């Protein structure tokens, strides 16, 4: 019997190695797998490369992982926020490396890893600092930049509901990076608020098919909290 439901966060994260690349879902307040990030801090893996849209807010979640000194490098599109003080201090003192990626290129590079694409040409970033030094090509009169996939050893994502095969549905805009990160990692752990019987999820509405998910952990439902950006940049 296939059963991807794990009894707790610690059991789902026991094999994370030092130096791993970890894809972490979430955009602003929505879709951040807080319990899984706390579990990763507890698990103790170091020297991590973290892929997330942002670089942590306040002093919890990704910011706490950074503060614990576990992150060597961050790949993200929008590190600077009103409450990104943990990242800001580490970055300014040279203790964390930053690879800044336009958000759509970030998403597509993750998707490419999950889809087995070796690299792709994208118009985004051409002629800018973020395209500098990269291979370019003119295709049908338009200029493109070559971008490579971003694969994860581990993905930590937040979904709403799962069954024991690991099929997932999400909640509203908390879906964001979840489905593509699930595809792009060798080991994907999803936290969910509800586990249902096989067959209870509408097969027409399953967003992430279980083949992309290796472990599911049920966590208590708490309202997603305000926070994140206090002010738009």
């Amino acid at each position, binding site marked *: 019997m296939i059963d991807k439901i794990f009894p707790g966060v610690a059991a789902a994260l026991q094999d994370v190695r030092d130096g791993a690349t970890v894809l972490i879902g979430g955009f602003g307040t929505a879709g951040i797998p807080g319990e899984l990030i706390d579990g990763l801090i507890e698990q103790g893996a170091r020297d991590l490369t973290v892929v997330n849209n942002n670089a942590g807010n306040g002093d919890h979640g990704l910011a706490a992982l950074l503060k614990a000194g576990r992150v060597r490098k961050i790949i993200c599109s929008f590190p600077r926020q009103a409450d990104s003080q943990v990242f800001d201090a580490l970055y300014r003192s040279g203790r964390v490396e930053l690879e800044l990626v336009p958000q759509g290129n970030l998403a597509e590079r993750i998707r490419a890893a999950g889809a087995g694409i070796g690299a792709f040409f994208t118009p985004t970033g051409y002629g800018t600092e973020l395209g500098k030094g990269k291979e370019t090509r003119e295709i049908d009169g338009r200029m493109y930049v070559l971008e490579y996939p971003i694969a994860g050893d581990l993905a930590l994502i937040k979904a709403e509901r799962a069954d024991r095969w690991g099929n997932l549905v999400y909640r509203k805009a908390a879906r*964001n990076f979840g489905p593509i990160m699930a595809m792009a990692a060798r080991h994907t752990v999803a936290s969910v608020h509800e586990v249902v019987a096989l067959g209870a999820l509408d097969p027409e509405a399953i967003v992430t098919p279980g083949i992309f998910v290796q472990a599911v952990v049920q966590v208590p439902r708490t309202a997603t909290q305000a926070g994140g950006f206090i002010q738009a940049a």
Partner: protein
Amino acid sequence: MTMTYTRRTKDQIAQRVAQDIYAGAYVNLGIGMPTAVANHLPRGIEVILQSENGILGMGPAPAPGSEDYDLINAGKQPVTLLPGGAFFHHADSFAMMRGGHLDICVLGAFQVSQKGDLANWHTGEPDAIPAVGGAMDLATGARQTWVMMDLLTKSGESKIVRECSYPLTGLACVKRVYTDLATLECGPQGLRLIDTVEGLSPDALQTLIGLPLRA
């Protein structure tokens, strides 16, 4: 003769942008100033707002007390979903831009060049932590990229320039610039004047910008 004119307020610029948005358009409003355009969309037409974090059919802010922080816009403020709205993941969201499905995006800017180069993500100051978000994808991906900004910096220099001095977001991607003093089109032929605020002559505007303007 002295000329008197009044600058458009942020809301009036938003109103001016909204006038040009047409029925059936799929539109992304960037964070900051462009968000206000949503408040002025013409009544009686349907316009579908996209949010980069996976929303089509985005509605206004919720009533106080009914905020849902799983339903936020790109600026991380709580929003609502209109009937017919849809959620999707990030790769699909940016495919909507890059794939040319999004009709219009409206962005803020530090500088726009006369041929439509855009600089809006980074001042290039050595101490600044760079952040780009979806700006480059939106600017190069949408069918039409419009900019909304004050024409002059606080020290009175034109933000419409011959060549951008700030780091670029995209090359030749801006089609129109809506400002507090005038609306202009930019492109391979340079600048073309669409309108100015009352009391500001095209010649006086040209002096402020310091670049040739076609009528």
